[in-house]
């Protein structure tokens, strides 16, 4: 569904992405893992067209995403740090997004209800705490029943109850056969979510393997330990 070929991006002299090629299929739940500044967010932003790669192509459903925008109808995106117009209320942000994307049709309000956002709809975005802003971002990402969900650090800043709600929602969407891309530093919570792992380091793709294969190769049962083992062996 999403195929990236030899994508490179330089910020000044620094390679944020260096010759990254990955393939993502429908029905997979992919974890994008790597240390800080390894290019995960840049890669996600390339898929969304927010960052234009210096070289390489990204195909979405066999069409190049360069200069196209309609493909984003099929993507729900939750940014790492959601930034919203400060003067708008939550309700206004939701209405605006609905207006832009899908004025009619069914919206998936499940997260809005379970996060109890409907009770604070009149609050302005400026007054929200970091966690509440994350809840708004998550609800917006799931609102349009998109085929692809891209979640950048979805549980960062959420309290345990909310992150559990979000995790369950992600699993339900995965079972519907959607493609889900997640980046996270909390590897322990990815265990029961992901089917595939993409590991990046310093802008380069280290490997793309299924979770099963990774566990077999390292002989570990937990993703966190498996990754730790990979990191140690790659450092030697």
């Amino acid at each position: 569904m999403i195929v990236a070929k030899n994508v490179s991006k330089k910020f000044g002299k620094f390679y944020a992405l260096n010759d990254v090629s990955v393939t993502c299929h429908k029905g997979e739940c992919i974890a994008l893992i790597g240390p800080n500044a390894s290019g995960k967010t840049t890669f996600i932003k390339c898929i969304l067209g927010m960052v234009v790669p210096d070289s390489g192509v990204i195909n979405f459903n066999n069409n190049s995403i360069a200069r196209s925008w309609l493909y984003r109808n099929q993507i729900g995106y939750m940014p790492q740090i959601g930034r919203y117009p400060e003067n708008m209320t939550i309700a206004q942000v939701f209405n605006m997004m609905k207006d832009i994307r899908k004025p009619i049709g069914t919206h998936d309000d499940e997260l809005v209800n379970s996060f109890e956002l409907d009770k604070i709809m009149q609050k302005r975005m400026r007054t929200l705490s970091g966690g509440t802003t994350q809840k708004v971002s998550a609800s917006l990402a799931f609102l349009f029943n998109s085929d692809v969900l891209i979640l950048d650090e979805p549980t960062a800043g959420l309290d345990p109850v909310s992150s559990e709600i979000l995790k369950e929602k992600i699993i339900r969407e995965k079972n519907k056969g959607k493609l889900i891309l997640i980046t996270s530093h909390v590897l322990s919570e990815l265990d029961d979510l992901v089917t595939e792992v993409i590991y990046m380091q310093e802008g380069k793709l280290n490997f793309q393997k299924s979770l099963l294969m990774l566990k077999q190769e390292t002989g570990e049962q937990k993703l966190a330990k498996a990754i730790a083992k990979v990191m140690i062996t790659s450092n030697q």
Partner: protein
Amino acid sequence: MKKIIKYVIVDLLRNKIVLFYTLLSLIISFSIFNLESNTSKGLLSLLNIVLIIVPLVCMIFSTIYIYNSAEFIELLVSQPLRRRTIWISLFIGLSVSLSLAFLIGIGLPIIIYQPNSTGFMMLLMGFLLSIIFVSIAMLASASTRDKAKGIGFAILLWLYFSLIFDAIVLFILFQFQDYPLEKPMIIFSFLNPIDLSRIQILLKMDIAALMGYTGAVFKDFFGTTTGIVVTTIVLSLWILIPVWISAKKFGKRDL
């Protein structure tokens, strides 16, 4: 596109600065017309406001507004929208609000006190200048991500158009005073929308006679219908080119 323009205009109305600007220019214009016994003198005082204050307000306000909409732009870019649509919608939203503010704040008093060809020329020029400086502001804010740099650049551009350019032209005039410079002067004036507007309005005021031989040459060219059409075309280019370049820059920007 319509939807985004709508959101920009609603946001600008909520912002209240545009309303304040409208009200303030309304008060200034009415008091100028009422202070002078002769309303055409009032028009002359208003000329400086149209040529200096209107561009300044449009430029600074638009630049700051675009920088402050960074979140809004970021949110929209990740949605199924064309980047150019987002950028052009911002431009249209700002132009509509600021030119409307001009038409009400300064245009209304002009229509009431001076409903003649001079008044309408000033109306047209002020309207075009409002949009031109929104367009130049778009260019300034697309050029750099640094807010302070962008606003500084906008102020410098305004200074250039309202002061520095004239100084350069004067300098050239003095250096080459032995040569006939009347024709090149017409070309020079195309390089500055403020000068172009000033010439058009002054010619309508019939004080071109005071400008000597250059004034006569100007009248021969700018006073005719062709001259007015050419001026309007050049001013339209001053709107289109900066906004076009800025849309290109924005299309390549990393967010």
